[in-house]
């Protein structure tokens, strides 16, 4: 994974907005997309299904979706990438967290049609093709940073972004910046330990 901070300079989206947390990010993207659509003169809402291309885990995938189809449902139900989980479908729990151009986003609050032209990374895209796990996946395993595992894909992607954003300075900062990802099993101290382990190995 790249440690370089993602390029945040995109129309209608402030860096500050991105850094406030993933649900805010999704909202900002929504504003950006609709502003763009209006600029292109598309004023009438069109409910017909359309064909889009999504770049998911380095592969371009073509799919047909309705405008109302959320990104998480397109990933899971249309592309079969069921590693991304739905925990509330209303942007409250973080289970559906994915990366869009390196930024953590709640995919349940993002429409699939808004995700064209960005690089999407889901949990399926973290291990390298030979099967070697991403260091964050290994750290989560070793630290038992989950029990039921349902929030884990979202936690791992959020954790990777947390370090990339520079928000893993100490345990307190990690706790704060990982609080958008709920874990009902209560594995939080182990999640923090996993993130510290990866942060330290990247610094070393």
């Amino acid at each position, binding site marked *: 994974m790249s440690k370089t901070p993602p390029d945040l300079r995109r129309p209608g989206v402030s860096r500050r907005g991105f850094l406030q947390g993933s649900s805010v990010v999704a909202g900002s993207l929504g504003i950006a997309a609709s502003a763009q659509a209006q600029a292109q003169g598309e004023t009438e809402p069109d409910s017909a299904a359309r064909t889009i291309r999504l770049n998911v885990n380095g592969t371009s995938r073509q799919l047909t979706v309705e405008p109302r189809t959320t990104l998480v449902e397109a990933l899971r139900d249309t592309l079969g990438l069921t*590693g991304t989980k739905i925990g509330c479908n209303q942007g409250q729990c973080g289970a559906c967290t994915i990366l869009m151009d390196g930024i953590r986003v709640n995919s349940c609050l993002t429409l699939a049609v808004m995700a064209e032209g960005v690089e999407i990374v889901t949990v399926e895209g973290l291990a390298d093709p030979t099967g070697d796990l991403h260091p964050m*996946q290994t750290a989560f395993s070793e630290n038992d940073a989950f*029990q039921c*595992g349902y*929030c884990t894909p979202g936690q791992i992607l959020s954790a990777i972004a947390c370090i990339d954003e520079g928000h893993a300075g100490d345990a307190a900062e990690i706790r*704060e910046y990982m609080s958008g990802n709920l874990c009902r099993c209560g*594995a939080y101290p182990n999640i923090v330990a996993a993130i510290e382990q990866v942060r330290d190995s990247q610094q070393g």
Partner: protein
Amino acid sequence: MAQTINTEVTRTDARRKVTGTASYAADMIPAGMLHGAMACSAIAVGSVTSIDTSAAEAEPGVVAVYTHETLPDYKTVKGFYAGGPGSSSFWPMEGTEIRYAGQPLAYVVAESAAAARRGADLVSVEYSESGAAIHMDPEESFVVGAGEDSEGMILTKGDLQAGLDGASQTVDMTFTTPFQHHNPMEMFAATAEWRGDRLTVWMPSQSVRTLRAGIAGAYGLPETSVRVISPFVGGAFGSKAGITPYAMLTIAASKAVGAPVRLIVTRPQMYTVATFRPETQQRFRLGADAEGRLTAFEHVETAQTPRFDDVVNPGTHITRAMYACPNIRTEQRLSRSDTNTGGFMRAPNEMQTFFGLESAMDALALKVGMDPVEFRRANDTMTHPTADVPFSSRSLMESYDAVAQGFGWSERGREIGSMTDGDWLVGYGCATATYPTNILASNARVRMQATGSAYVELAAHDVGTGTYTIMAQVAAARLGLPVEAVDVVMGEGDLPVAPISGGSTTAASAGSAVHDGCMKIARQVAEVVSSMAEGPLAGVDPSRVTLDDGTLRGPDGQSQSLAEALQMVPEGEVEVVGTFRHPALTPELIHATFAGGYGTAGPVTPEMAMFAFGAEMAEVRIHRYTHEIRVPRLHGAFAAGTWLNRKTSHSQLMGGMVWGMGSALHEVTETDTPRARFLNANIAEYLIPVNADVREVRVEMLEERDDYVNPLGVKGIGELGIVGTAAAIGNAIHHATGKRLTALPFRISDMVSA
């Protein structure tokens, strides 16, 4: 051979969980699958006068809309508290009757999840509304099974009044606990696929055998015609045990529409289509003599129940097991209100009752002038106070001493409000944790091959508890294999019977069946190799061959590894069914479990009382001006027999304590009283601990040996950690501020008011 039990083993399913390849029920997408969605009642009590489904049916993508009038072949089952497999005795969509807010009224099937949701929104219902009350009135309560003392709902020992009269100090305290909802991260889901009269159901479940038997029974099918598949469960905590209306509606809708249908229940609907922790009131009257010994112990628990079910989670059966006292009286009461049926939520008998008991014990210790830990020591007992049988093992005070040392209890200021740090008032509190060791019959199929692999198959579940891993560990230890060489298959209804993943039973009961299977393999292999002309065990009496973690040993020092011996077996493998039938399991209980029910024995048998114990300590800080409550440290020490896996056990106990903190400071299902409905039905406004809430949580696991509970010496720990946490935090708040809080959860407003 590396140690495989009582050590830290990384979960065998960790790779699947961190790569997104662990498949949960809603991840299964059969070909041609359609999507379901429910429309639920906006009123609490009354009836449907009309339902207009035309707008929903006109919605693009909607395939069908079913109501009580139009859903064919919809079946129901008896509720759990009436002895059946269902989550409720009242079933929606059988008629026009509405008995609780959020009751399903229509079921939409569509080509996409979005279309199904939109369709559900477009269903228009006209109601006739009656009055309703969501909260119980404890004054209008009744004793469960009144007059039938055999149920133990009222129990008296000695003379309570004499004990109170003779006490040097008494307390009379009433505590309340709110409605709570489990809120597992995985939303409830069910996918049904019919092929002729064969049905497959993918559904997160704590009891796949219950589901299979119940669904097959409802449709009059042989159990072999119904497959129930639940390989991974995204948290359950009691919410995924019974057969729910949403499951039976999905099964019926799939049959009606002639295609597989998947329903993912919305987070708000999760509050009313399954179960919850009922609100309760706990009254304790305790008396102690000048030396701090209890002279009187009375506990009356009143819990909410719906109009149509008696939800009995007898907490008094657990509290009365705690402390020595000559005069004891307990009473279990229910009070009705208009809700869906509650049920069991992590430590269903213990969480709310131990908040009350351990808070009252703290108050009484203060009155007697004793240190709270020493007060528990003065009342510790190795004999069950009302059943008069010994505890099979009880390490309560060992737990207190261990946690006290690590926590620094000796530095606790004796006086209330005596500890401060700048603008923070600091308090230390402690409380007892316990959980009964429940026993259920279990089977497990175990197969070992000469190539050095083993397979373990049973209808148990991994709800995050680490079951896949510990079952592999037990087999690996007995068979002398690395853990990775054992493949465990669970979570399917047609596997050998294993208990419900509830009541903290799986490790102890199912694990013991795996253990027994390994011993049977050894016996069979010993019989073959002892009858051979050559080999280390040739000619040895097979009945005198023992299995010593992978090695067969004869009576005169002969030995051969099991794997080696297996190479001499013509088949090259042996397959057996291991069983666990604790002596306390009666034929009726065994039958109940094998029929898909819950035939639980214990925690008290005619010979022994079986409980796990622990002690928890909390440091609380309350800001002098903002009154915010923080819990920087939460420590627990626990003793629960053999620890199978110190890594996953630690996570379970830590997670339990985090849940306890949630009960203390966050969790409450708020109500809209005038409209008799749950209000904060989502996972943002129903507060649960988030990462930033949880600071230092330290768990110590003590060694304890118990040969009575089961061959592994294991007591369940899935629920132990939550018990006592809320009281420890409440007692710490009292130590810091002198405020005795009697209602969960504790809030800033409690600190501001007098």
